[in-house]
């Protein structure tokens, strides 16, 4: 039926079972009744009386009595049923009395609640009336029943709450309260409201927990005392019964121990949860519960037999697991390992600790006291419960068996731990799995089975390494060392391997900063002792040496070349200094430290990329080994082979420089622990070249060792490996990375000759510098330098000539005088003794002169021909033509020939010349001479005008100021009387009978120091007379303070558009400006005079110009024709008083 409750709780379908009992007064609930069920809820009075008299006579008071009793017991749930039978109705025809009965009863008893009285017609009769009367009756019955139930339930809950409120009062007992609330839970359970039931238990749980915590915090409730009693039985949880009555009774009697209470609570919760199909919650809660219990017992300081809890937990875990397995199938379980695995591991741990406790793990089984312990523990288990008695996999049996014997224990323990590991693996919790594995390994070690242990350890080690968890790493490694030592004892592997492994590990440990000094020293000692003992003592023939990776022994920090260039000539000393940081805790004496060097012949192209790794200061720094050594990036470099003859490219290719290193990476993946097969690796590398240092003592921390590198053969030397030998132990750095190289070169002697001046001048003696690079050659006594003379450039015998001898690095080694014999053919210079790779330099005087030879006609003719082409020049043809005939021309030599031009007549403005020479390479004189010609012009220069200027401050000032107007006075002076030759390029105009030439001046300032105000340019007409002067004045304003340079003053020839047009020199400026504007524009877009000039020259052939708008033109003077006296002049300008606006008035 549907159940609606107050407080808007959702309606629920519930199932309520009721049965009829005969009314007895004593059944009615007494005061303070705690029970919630098993007492009458609804009272029904049946009557079939249909006769008013009878009713009045007996029935009525009977009813009243009944009512009274009910009221007495405060029960308001009653119903009166009037059964009508028709047989009585027959004789009575009028229906009034019958109806009146019901009505009577109605208004007698149920005055307001008329529904408390129902009429029920004869059930035996098949009539619609009876039908619906029945159904109405039943519904009524149901609702009333439910109403009363609800009322009671409500009342109960209220009572319960009030009881809980009382919990702070002294007399209060948890157990009583527990019973009450559990009653409620039962009711809900009966109503199949498992959620609500569960809530009740959870509330109890929480309440209890809170108490325990408070107790921990100091304020204990006295009732807790009963729970603090020492634990006597620890037969874990029991989840197979719906209700564990014994425990319930214990609680009821207030004798339950904490474990009892907890177990009971949990078993109930478990049951409900399983009803609710939430098994995984069970497991989660279970784990929580177990931990919690352990904590609580500690907190309450309950005395427990050592190991008892372990038993309890172990049993409980298994019990829960069994229960769960009971209620769901395989696939579900596998899908939910993550929920169960916790319990498995917990059980495993507990079993392990039990094993330790009872001495079942030690190699030599349990001793007597262990056995006693075992007995006590088993006693605590009590007898097996009937539920599990017949199942042979029960936790109880398991535990008993496990504790019975060493073997059994091992079996069970392994079983459990493997199960746990498998599950962890299955759900991908590898770290957890490994942790289990580690404890398993510890177990094996205890059992003296290092082999099985090692794998687990190595496995977990790997993960710690890869994630660089130093502490666990160290710890695990220590364990490994331990077990490897044992392995070493028992000759499982061929001993050199096991030695190797062990030593490697101890090397790592010795260098491990996480360990204490003592430990480190111990492991270091392990190595040293091993190293010191001779091969014989170990009684083994094959390779006595053990090679370990150096990274654990020392670290190569830095490598320094001297000289820094790492590039020396054959035979020179090249030192390289290693900076090693020893990781050992104690000084270690190394018999030999050797670096293997790989030699490769001269290879152009490789040299360039070598520098990449090496800093300019000749040091190579090596990256500190990072915890996760990612395999190095492959290092490609370009190799080019040039053919020795002509330096042409033969082959080009890409080479992987560090292939050896990459390859090795592959074959030994875990370089840290597995043996690198280094002994052979060292032997290889065409082992010829080795850098050795003997008897080095490496102190802890930084050391530096100096090697002198071999440099006999020219070529590239690459450092490949480093190996430190301590007795039988070799520490090998299998590859030095980044690549370290140095180069050795050899060189042929060379002679270079260079004039001191950049050009040799003909005719006068000059010094020439001779430089000899001896290269690999040693200048011995009597060696001489022979120069074959040329008569064009003889070597002058200088009295004293000393040579300076410089070392390859350029410092002066010595000086010595040279003796020079010269015949007419050769000059031989005897050289002083000079070691190889030195430079010898000295100066010689030479004279190069041009031998005079008869001028050859045809060549002359040729030249004349050339010249005749240059028109407009008045040059005499054969004027001082020189034909030079130089025998040999050295490279970088200059030949000079000097001419003088004499003018027979008036010199031209410019004389065009051409220089011709014929030449052929010295080695092939017979081939036809190739001509070489160079044209140049000799210009006549004569200054026509000079320009001067003055800048005067504004009136009243004695200095110019920024922002104030100043007066610029420009004066133009004609220097010379123009002669007729100039007519061509100067225009004259006759005005008032005196010849004037018109000039245009212009003042502009590219540096804009000056603001030129108003008219910046104009035209003046110069009288054609020497020293004729013209002055112009204008206003300019300095924009800056300081020494300002004068503005630019330019002067141009001014060519009016038509000579006939008369232009007054003093016409108003408009016209000028007008005309000038053009020029200005010209100025703006092409400021440099050169272009202007060309422009001018174009226009100077004005005749061809189409007759368009007549335009005046201007033409720049040739270079030097105008002397500008203002250039470079400066005038002092003082900063103006800054008023920002000023009005300028220009007229």
């Amino acid at each position, binding site marked *: 039926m549907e159940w609606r409750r107050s407080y808007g709780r959702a309606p629920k379908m519930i199932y309520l079972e009721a049965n009829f009992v005969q009314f007895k007064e004593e059944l009615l609930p007494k005061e303070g009744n705690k029970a919630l069920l098993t007492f009458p809820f609804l009272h029904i009075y049946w009557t079939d009386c249909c006769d008013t008299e009878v009713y009045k006579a007996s029935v009525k008071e009977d009813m009243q009595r009944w009512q009274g009793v009910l009221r007495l017991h405060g029960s308001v749930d009653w119903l009166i049923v009037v059964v009508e039978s028709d047989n009585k109705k027959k004789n009575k025809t009028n229906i009034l009395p019958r109806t009146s009965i019901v009505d009577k009863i109605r208004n007698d008893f149920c005055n307001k609640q008329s529904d408390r009285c129902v009429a029920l017609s004869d059930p035996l009769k098949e009539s619609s009336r009876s039908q619906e009367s029945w159904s109405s009756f039943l519904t009524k019955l149901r609702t009333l029943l439910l109403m009363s139930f609800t009322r009671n339930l409500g009342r109960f809950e209220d009572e319960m709450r009030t009881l809980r409120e009382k919990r702070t009062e002294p007399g209060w007992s948890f157990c009583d309260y527990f019973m009450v609330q559990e009653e409620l839970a039962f009711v809900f359970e009966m109503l199949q409201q498992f959620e609500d039931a569960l809530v009740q238990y959870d509330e109890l749980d929480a309440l209890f927990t809170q108490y325990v915590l408070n107790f921990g*915090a100091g304020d204990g409730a006295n009732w807790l005392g009963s729970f603090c009693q020492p634990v006597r039985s620890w037969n874990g949880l029991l989840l197979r019964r719906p209700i564990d009555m014994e425990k319930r009774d214990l609680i009821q009697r207030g004798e339950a121990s904490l474990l009892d209470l907890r177990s009971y609570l949990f078993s109930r919760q478990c049951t409900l949860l399983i009803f609710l199909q939430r098994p995984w919650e069970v497991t989660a809660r279970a784990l929580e519960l177990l931990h919690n219990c352990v904590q609580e017992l*500690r907190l309450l300081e309950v005395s427990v037999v050592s190991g008892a809890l372990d038993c309890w937990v172990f049993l409980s875990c298994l019990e829960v697991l069994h229960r769960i397995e009971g209620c769901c199938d395989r696939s579900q379980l596998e899908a939910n390992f993550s929920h169960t695995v916790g319990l498995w591991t917990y059980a495993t741990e507990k079993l392990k600790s039990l094993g330790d406790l009872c001495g079942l793990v030690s190699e030599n089984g349990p001793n007597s006291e262990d056995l006693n312990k075992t007995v006590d523990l088993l006693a605590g288990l009590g007898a097996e419960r009937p539920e599990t008695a017949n199942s042979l996999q029960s936790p109880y049996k398991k535990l008993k068996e496990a504790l019975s014997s060493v073997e059994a224990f091992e079996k069970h323990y392994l079983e459990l731990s493997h199960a746990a590991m498998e599950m962890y693996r299955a759900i991908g919790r590898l*770290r957890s799995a490994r942790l289990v594995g580690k404890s398993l390994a510890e177990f094996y070690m205890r059992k003296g089975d290092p082999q099985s242990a090692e794998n687990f350890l190595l496995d977990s080690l790997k993960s710690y390494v890869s994630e*660089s968890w130093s502490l666990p790493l160290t710890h695990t490694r220590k364990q490994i060392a331990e077990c490897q030592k044992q392995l070493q004892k028992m000759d499982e592997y061929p001993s050199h391997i096991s030695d190797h492994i062990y030593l490697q590990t101890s090397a790592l440990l010795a260098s491990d900063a996480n360990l204490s000094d003592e430990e480190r020293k111990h492991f270091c000692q392990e190595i040293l002792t091993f190293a010191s003992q001779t091969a014989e003592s170990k009684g083994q023939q094959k390779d006595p040496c053990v090679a370990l990776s150096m990274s654990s022994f020392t670290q190569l920090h830095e490598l320094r070349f001297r000289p820094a260039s790492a590039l020396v000539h054959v035979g020179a000393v090249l030192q390289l200094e290693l900076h090693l940081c020893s990781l050992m805790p104690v000084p270690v004496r190394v018999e030999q430290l050797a670096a293997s060097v790989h030699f490769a012949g001269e290879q152009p192209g490789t040299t360039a990329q070598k520098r990449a790794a090496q800093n300019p200061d000749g040091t190579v720094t090596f990256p500190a080994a990072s915890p996760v050594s990612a395999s190095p990036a492959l290092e490609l470099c370009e190799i080019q082979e040039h053919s020795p003859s002509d330096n042409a490219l033969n082959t080009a290719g890409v080479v992987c420089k560090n292939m050896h290193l990459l390859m090795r990476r592959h074959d030994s993946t875990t370089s840290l622990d597995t043996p690198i097969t280094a002994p052979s690796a060292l032997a290889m590398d065409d082992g010829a070249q080795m850098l050795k240092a003997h008897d080095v003592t490496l102190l802890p921390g930084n050391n530096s060792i100096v090697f002198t590198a071999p440099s006999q053969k020219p070529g590239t030397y690459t450092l490949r490996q480093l190996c430190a030998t301590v007795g039988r132990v070799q520490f090998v750095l299998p590859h030095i990375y980044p690549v370290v190289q140095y180069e050795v070169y050899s060189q042929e002697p060379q002679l270079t000759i260079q004039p001191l001046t950049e050009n040799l001048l003909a005719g006068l003696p000059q010094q020439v510098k001779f430089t000899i690079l001896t290269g690999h050659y040693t200048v011995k006594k009597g060696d001489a330098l022979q120069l074959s003379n040329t008569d064009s450039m003889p070597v002058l015998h200088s009295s004293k000539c000393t040579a300076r001898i410089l070392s390859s690095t350029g410092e002066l080694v010595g000086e010595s005088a040279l003796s020079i014999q010269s015949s007419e053919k050769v000059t031989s210079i005897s050289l002083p003794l000079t070691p190889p790779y030195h430079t010898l330099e000295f100066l010689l005087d030479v004279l190069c002169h041009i031998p005079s030879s008869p001028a050859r006609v045809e060549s002359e003719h040729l030249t004349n021909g050339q010249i005749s082409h240059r028109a407009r020049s008045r040059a005499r043809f054969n004027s001082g033509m020189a034909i030079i005939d130089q025998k040999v021309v050295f490279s970088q030599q200059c030949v000079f020939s000097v001419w003088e031009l004499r003018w027979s007549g008036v010199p031209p403005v410019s004389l065009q010349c051409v220089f011709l020479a014929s030449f052929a390479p010295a080695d092939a004189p017979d081939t036809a001479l190739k001509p070489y010609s160079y044209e140049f012009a000799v210009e006549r220069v004569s200054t026509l005008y000079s320009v001067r200027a003055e800048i005067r401050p504004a009136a009243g000032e004695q200095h110019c100021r920024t922002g104030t107007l100043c007066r610029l006075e420009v004066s133009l002076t004609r220097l010379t009387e123009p002669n007729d030759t100039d007519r061509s390029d100067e225009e004259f105009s006759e005005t008032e009978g005196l010849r004037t030439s018109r000039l245009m001046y212009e003042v502009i300032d590219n540096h804009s120091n000056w603001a030129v105000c108003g008219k910046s340019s104009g035209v003046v007409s110069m009288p054609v007379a020497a020293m004729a002067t013209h002055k112009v004045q204008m206003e300019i304003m300095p924009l800056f303070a300081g020494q300002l340079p004068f503005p630019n003053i330019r002067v141009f020839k001014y060519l009016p558009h038509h000579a006939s047009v008369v232009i007054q020199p003093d016409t108003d400026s408009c016209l000028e400006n007008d005309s000038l504007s053009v020029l200005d524009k010209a100025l703006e877009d092409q400021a440099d005079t050169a272009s202007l000039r060309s422009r001018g020259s174009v226009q100077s052939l004005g005749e061809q110009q189409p007759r368009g708008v007549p335009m005046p033109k201007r033409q720049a003077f040739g270079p030097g024709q105008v002397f500008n006296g203002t250039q470079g002049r400066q005038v002092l300008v003082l900063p103006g008083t800054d008023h920002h606006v000023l009005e300028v008035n220009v007229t």
Partner: protein
Amino acid sequence: MTTRDVPLGTVQIGICSGHVNYPLYIRSVPTQGELKFHYTVHTSLDVVEEKISGVGKALGDQRELYLGLLYPTEDYKVYGYVTNSKVKFVIVVDSSNTSLRDNEIRSMFRKLHNSFTDVMCNPFYNPGDPIQSKAFDSIVSAMMVQAC
């Protein structure tokens, strides 16, 4: 409030970097239990990763950084927190330490996260290195002291 027989400061904090799970910072007081603690934290990463992946599936992007109780052991409670950059914070509390409820832990993580961000902002700190910042140290130790 400090509870009885809880040794002062059994709060331990570990931070592990992104996907590679290097320990960036591990701090534990008192130091005697350190090794065990390291193991615990390292193992807890399993659960963290499980949760990350799980959560990723469940709630998609609107992710809660706080992962809550990773797993209880008999004497530790291990809580987890992971940033969106997959930096994992783990706090291990002695399970007898009842003063720390979920909210306290939550706020501790938040505080950690903030100061961790500051560390990351230090231009001289290059991500992935173990954290040596003194400021961070002091903050953490303050947190631990008041936690216990």
